């Protein structure tokens, strides 16, 4: 069995690290659905960028994706501020299908003129085209991860406080708004960078699955974030190998096994194993919460 392409392997590990990190934070903010919206919103962003510039260059498309992701994120925040009765999932859920549907309408209208982007473009947006990933993509992911990682590390106290009790954080003088702003930005950036590699569907799934995989094992903030990140790296590491294994067993020449879905399946498997594993191995707990009066 051959070994995976270096760039693809590093990109997958980078994606795993990045979404493990971002996912853990997003999960604690109870904003996992928001991450989904940012990912979906990138689609009309890519199309609009293409429509305006006629350029297929990845930088232009990424910029379009970023602008729309951030834009939709702002709309969510604005809606939540304007209508405090829209609790929790309300605002993002409203925008989720809408953002992607906007893209689909645009795409339909542009179909006649989508030279070179076409529906192969849509498929690669949804599920990524890992085989065509180059070192630049891998370095970008690892770079964004490093930036995000440093931020989270140095401001871990503030972040932990802000995510647990926002009001209290204000009172303690912690920079709530600034931190939240940077986290939002990092999420949008992370989404955009991963689109080419793993695709939208995959990164949405990773953002959710990785923190859930980490959750049952720890009750400390730092350990939780670290574990989610490392599990992401692990899944990212295994995925290209799994793809090669499946290709050599089931594939034909010229027909590959898609990397994106394998990534999601492995992450989901890890999450399931984490959630159910202890229960399977140690039996049902008789004392469920250790409550003392």
């Amino acid at each position, binding site marked *: 069995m*051959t070994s*995976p*392409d270096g*760039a*693809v392997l590093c990109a997958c590990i980078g994606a795993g690290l990045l979404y493990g990190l971002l996912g853990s934070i997003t999960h604690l903010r109870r904003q996992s659905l928001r991450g989904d919206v940012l990912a979906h919103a990138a689609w009309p962003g890519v199309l609009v960028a293409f429509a305006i510039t006629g350029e*297929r260059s990845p930088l232009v498309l990424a910029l379009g994706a970023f602008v729309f992701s951030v834009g939709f994120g702002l709309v969510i925040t604005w809606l939540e501020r304007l209508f405090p009765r829209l609790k929790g999932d309300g605002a993002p859920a409203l925008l989720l299908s809408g953002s992607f549907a906007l893209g689909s309408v645009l795409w*339909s*209208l542009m*179909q*006649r*003129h*989508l*030279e*070179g*982007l*076409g*529906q*192969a*473009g849509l*498929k*690669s947006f949804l599920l990524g*085209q*890992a*085989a*065509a*990933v*180059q*070192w630049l993509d891998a370095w970008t992911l690892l770079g964004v991860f490093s930036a995000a990682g440093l931020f989270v590390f140095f401001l871990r106290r503030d972040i932990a406080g802000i995510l647990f009790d926002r009001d209290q954080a204000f009172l303690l003088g912690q920079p709530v708004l600034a931190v939240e702003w940077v986290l939002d930005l990092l999420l949008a950036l992370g989404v955009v960078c991963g689109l080419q590699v793993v695709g939208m569907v995959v990164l949405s799934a990773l953002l959710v699955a990785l923190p859930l995989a980490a959750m049952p094992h720890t009750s400390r903030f730092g350990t939780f974030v670290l574990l989610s990140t490392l599990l992401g790296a692990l899944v990212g590491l295994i995925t*290209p190998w799994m*793809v*090669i294994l499946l*290709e*050599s067993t089931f*594939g*034909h*020449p*010229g*027909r*590959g*096994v*898609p990397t994106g879905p394998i990534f999601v399946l492995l992450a989901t498997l890890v999450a399931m194993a984490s959630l159910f594993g202890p229960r399977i191995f140690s039996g049902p707990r008789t004392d469920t919460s250790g409550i003392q009066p």
Partner: protein
Amino acid sequence: MGIHRRRFLATPGLAALTLGGLGCANWEQGDHVLATTTLVGDLVRQLLPTEIPVFLLMGPGIDPHTYEPTARTVAHIQQARLIVGHGLHLEGRLTELLEATHEHGLRRVFLVTRHLENLHPNRLRKSDGQWDPHIWFDAALWSDTIQPLARTLAEVYPRHRTPIEEKGHLLMSEFKNLHREMLDGIQSIPPSRRILITSHDAFGYLGQAYGLEVHAIQGISTAAEVSESSLRELANLAVDRKVSVGFLESTVSPRTLEKLRALIRARAGRSTETSFRLGGELFSDSLGGVGSGAETYQAMMRHNLRVISGALSHG
């Protein structure tokens, strides 16, 4: 918006009808031919007299493998007098719609490759268990589609039977000349250099007919998943056989070729002897637009020949 119209004009009455049909879901039948791809449309246009307009579903640069039919597609089909498609599953999901339309007797549908598929399947190439639909790259084969098409057109437009049949003969001899031109052109490339690397496997018939070894990153459909191992095999081949040029396609994103180039560079090091470049854009699944120099089939084939022989001969 609206479907892509060919360059010559319809009569004012037909124009009004078409515009009316475009404006709303008008199911009234017009007098025109609806063609699916630019290649099929070009063939029909070259056969028909100019009074009869030909409309296209897919403009230049659109990838037919992944074309998604919409409600408007159905409306266009309803408005046409005759629909001419390619067949051999080139048009992806549209094929099913066309076949359903034909089976239910809703409109007349003609697939230019049906005759070949039924009567001469041995001349068709198979790839990965499926028919390779890109037959137009073999001019002789493409020429063989003319007669059945001309017959159908004559049936639908009986008043124009004679000019259609005459044009048919003319075209057939033109394509024969083209065929010889292509053969000479490709054969003039030094034998060791006759290797064509492209994004997807569109040029199998070109290779078969004119003596080129053809390799592609993706299979015959652009919808298939790119496999890392096939990329790597191709890179090895390129390095071993000292292939220095790969060709972009007008309907496919260059990402996979760029990755191939990166792999080759990594494998071969920096020696100039084995540097790999992307040498020009070929028209694969579509003709070119206005001003591209490839608005007709003949022009497109000659353009591709120029690009290929130019790049491969000079390395």
